[in-house]
């Protein structure tokens, strides 16, 4: 089910400001790809360009080609909602729907797709929550508000909500930045399990995290404020962190910059 993602000259604008310029990269199925780089270098923008969430912001638009198993996501006749159903997303801050219970949060995506059968939904909730390593903690309080959980649990609830619709790619935008170290560890374990089913792209500020969870790493950077972000180097994680080919990458990894 997992998909290959190919970016060909993906460029993103906020009105007239160019945020990322001509990103080319190929992301293999069932792998974890980490995007690292200093703040404002466009890694989140690139991530949001993969499932066309970038264009949700007023004035924002994309150029270039982004292929999911050969189909260009930016084509005119592509259904945006189908793209987003195929590519799940987890956000920086846990964002469960505040008015919904844990159960309703998990099935919110399925409900949108018209699944009504109780037994199907029950199965899906258990499977998604088990998949997100949350089942044992919440199985006795599924009807309670999702907002009552701890931050780490909320984030895993959001992961469960994203994987409940069986997407093929999972995008994670700094999923641990609002969490404590123990919750972070749980999410990282979860990522390595989820890798068996999904193509995962994760944006992170934490280089240790990138080194721990990812197979491949892309380093983004900008020359100076106001310039668009570019992909400086993209390689196996082990190579990036031990022997990067670009001077800029090395400076960033070793902490001399950024």
């Amino acid at each position, binding site marked *: 089910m997992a998909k290959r993602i190919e970016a060909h000259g993906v460029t993103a604008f906020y009105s007239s400001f160019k945020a990322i310029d001509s990103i080319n990269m190929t992301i293999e199925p069932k792998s974890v790809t980490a995007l690292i780089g200093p703040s404002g270098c466009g890694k989140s923008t690139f991530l949001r360009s993969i499932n066309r969430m970038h264009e949700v912001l007023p004035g924002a638009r994309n150029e270039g080609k982004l292929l999911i198993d050969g189909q260009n996501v930016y084509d005119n006749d592509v259904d945006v909602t189908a793209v987003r159903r195929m590519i799940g997303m987890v956000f920086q801050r846990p964002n469960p729907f505040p008015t919904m219970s844990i159960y309703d949060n998990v099935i919110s995506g399925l409900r949108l797709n018209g699944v009504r059968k109780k037994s199907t939904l029950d199965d899906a909730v258990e499977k998604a929550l*088990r998949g997100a390593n949350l*089942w044992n903690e919440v199985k006795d309080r599924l009807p309670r508000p999702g907002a009552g959980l701890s931050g780490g649990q909320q984030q895993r609830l959001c992961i469960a909500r994203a994987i409940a619709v069986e997407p093929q790619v999972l995008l994670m935008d700094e999923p641990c930045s609002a969490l404590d170290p123990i919750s972070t560890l749980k999410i990282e374990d979860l990522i390595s399990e989820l890798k068996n089913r999904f193509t995962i792209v994760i944006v992170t500020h934490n280089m240790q995290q990138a080194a721990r969870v990812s197979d491949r790493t892309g380093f983004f950077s900008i020359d100076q404020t106001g310039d668009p972000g570019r992909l400086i180097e993209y390689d196996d994680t082990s190579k990036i962190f031990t022997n990067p080919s670009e001077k800029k990458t090395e400076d960033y990894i070793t902490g001399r910059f950024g």
Partner: protein
Amino acid sequence: MTAQVDTERPVVIASGDQLKAKRLPTWAPVAVAAAAIVLAAGLVMGTGWGGPVLTGVVAAVLFIVGLGVAGGVVEGRRAGSNRVATTLIYSAFLLALAPLLSVAFVLVTKGFERLDGNFLGTSMKNISAFDANGGAYHAIIGTLEQAGIATLITVPLGIAGAIYIVEYGRGFLANAIRFFVDVMTGIPSIVAGLFILSFWVFVVTPIFNDGRPGYSGFAAALALSVLMLPTVVRSTEEMLRLVPGALREGAYALGIPKWKTIMKIVLPTAGPGIVTGCMLAVARAAGETAPVLLVAGGNPAINFSPFSDNQSSLSLYVFEQAGVASQYAPARAWAAALTLVVIVLTLTVLAKLLARRNKLAR
């Protein structure tokens, strides 16, 4: 805790591989609209059922249904309902625009028929049903005096009440006050008028007035105060809550007493927001008719004193002229309505502009 995920058994296949959806061509809505109009015209005009208005209504209904069905068949149920919802939301907008624009248009065109120096400078004293002139000077004076006095009463009281709720109030009393401020917001203006009638006019004023009830502009101002108070308390309370706690603590740490901190630091910080709230409250009170009708009684002549004798107001003047059987009355009513709206909207616009400069509000 190991997850027992059965990856081979997909519970639900919610997302297929198909990214490209069949979409209605861009000309489809236009085509549906044209078809709806033709069909509606045939149905309504052809059968002699009704006129152009009904045709428009039927065409709109046919358009919404038609587009929903076409979208549903070609693009799927979800996209179809999205189209119907979008169309409904935009048509709600257009539907409401018509009467509101009509009100604005009539107000301006009819209002300017009589709005001149003579209208603004004369009263209705000795004006009979056969006289074309006569004006609203006395009513303007009444509105300004009554709203002004109501402001003088309500603003200090309301701000002090809000300070209590935010800075001092604890426990049952504070909660009860907060709850009843919200409830008081919903008291109808006529009830406020009746209250001042049965309290001030019938019970208090006879003591100073040889036992006769004292209708006056001041009584109207009291009734308007009852209406303004909850609004002023509520908006002040909200602004006070926006003042960062660190600001208060900074002052306390310097040994400044609490009351001085509130007066010198908290209130000035929240100032612009409080002024906005008060102005909006005045604007609403200035347009009220019922309380003035009940406790100020109306007066065709100029009466500068708010404390003795009947007084009129612009809104009451509009209501009175609306009921006068004279061919000249409607023009006077609309001119007064326009004057009133100008006063009220000036206050509102100023308040909103001030709110925009407010650094505390988001």
